[in-house]
């Protein structure tokens, strides 16, 4: 085993933690997480602009997880919940950070990396064009994902998508995605 999920979880756990979860990513879990985050954002009296952005990005991040989680590597099956994923929402003075992590099979790395790299290379206008192109031309996949999630996240946040693939074994990697939502009052 080349890394421990627990260490990874601890490593991501920096800043003010609003939400931390590791376990099965189910529809009910998504409801609970969204409710919890929404009430926290209201407690903070967060500006509606950033509140909506954080909420939107969390919806897309969680639903990306929900649609794209692959099976847990066989070595881990006894130790982790099925459809295992991790989620962390942290906050510092200028950003909210939404981190998600899930196992993916090795064959998915190349297309995912090239998709993210492409998104990260595009300007705001180009992202808008890509979004509209996918919206009009692509069919919804069997998994229900529209293929729009990452593009939408990049568009709404205006930030690049930070990511990492941690090797677990020859077949499985752990994909970590960090999304930053900047406070518009600080950056503009």
């Amino acid at each position, binding site marked *: 085993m080349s890394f421990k999920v627990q260490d990874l979880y601890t490593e991501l756990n920096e800043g003010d933690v609003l939400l931390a979860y590791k376990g099965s990513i189910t*529809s009910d879990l*998504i*409801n609970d997480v*969204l*409710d919890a985050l929404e009430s926290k954002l209201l407690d903070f009296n967060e500006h*509606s*602009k950033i509140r*909506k*952005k954080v*909420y*939107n990005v969390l*919806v*897309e991040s969680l*639903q990306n997880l*929900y*649609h794209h989680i692959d099976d847990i590597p066989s070595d881990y099956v006894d130790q982790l919940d099925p459809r295992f994923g991790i989620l962390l929402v942290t906050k510092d003075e200028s950003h909210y950070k939404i981190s998600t992590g899930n196992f993916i099979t090795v064959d998915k790395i190349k297309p995912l990396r090239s998709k993210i790299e492409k998104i990260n290379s595009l300007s705001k206008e180009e992202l*808008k064009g890509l*979004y*509209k192109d996918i*919206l*009009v031309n692509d069919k*919804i996949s069997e998994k*229900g*994902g*529209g293929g*729009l*999630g990452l*593009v*939408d996240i990049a568009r*709404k946040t205006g930030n690049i998508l930070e990511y990492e693939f941690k090797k677990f074994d020859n077949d499985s990697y752990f994909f970590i995605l960090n999304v930053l939502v900047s406070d518009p009052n600080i950056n503009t």
Partner: protein
Amino acid sequence: MKSIDIEGTSKTPTVNLNAENGVVEIKGRSIPENSVEFYKPLVDWLEEYKKAPVGKTTVNIQLEYFNTSSSKCILDVFKKLEDINKGDAEVVINWHYEEDDEDMLEAGEDYESIIRVPFKMIEVAE
């Protein structure tokens, strides 16, 4: 033709489709994991309505949140409305967005640039 009235939930919008007065309303949140299932009856209803629409169909979209899975389904709804907006039948889409919600305004403008139906952008207080 029977109207459709669906009460909203934390993940799905309130829907009112009325063939008699030609008012189509989708309001609230649309963030289900699988939105095709939710939107299919709406698209089917519009397909039926297309056969005998009223002179002017008024569409009110007032969403607080919608996810990317819904965005394709909403496009399908708008495509049906585009089909209806022909000949003597007229369609207007009123796209509501909360003040300061530039993302929602921009989403409306995206649809406006794709669909050949007049859009009216309406800012509402939060």
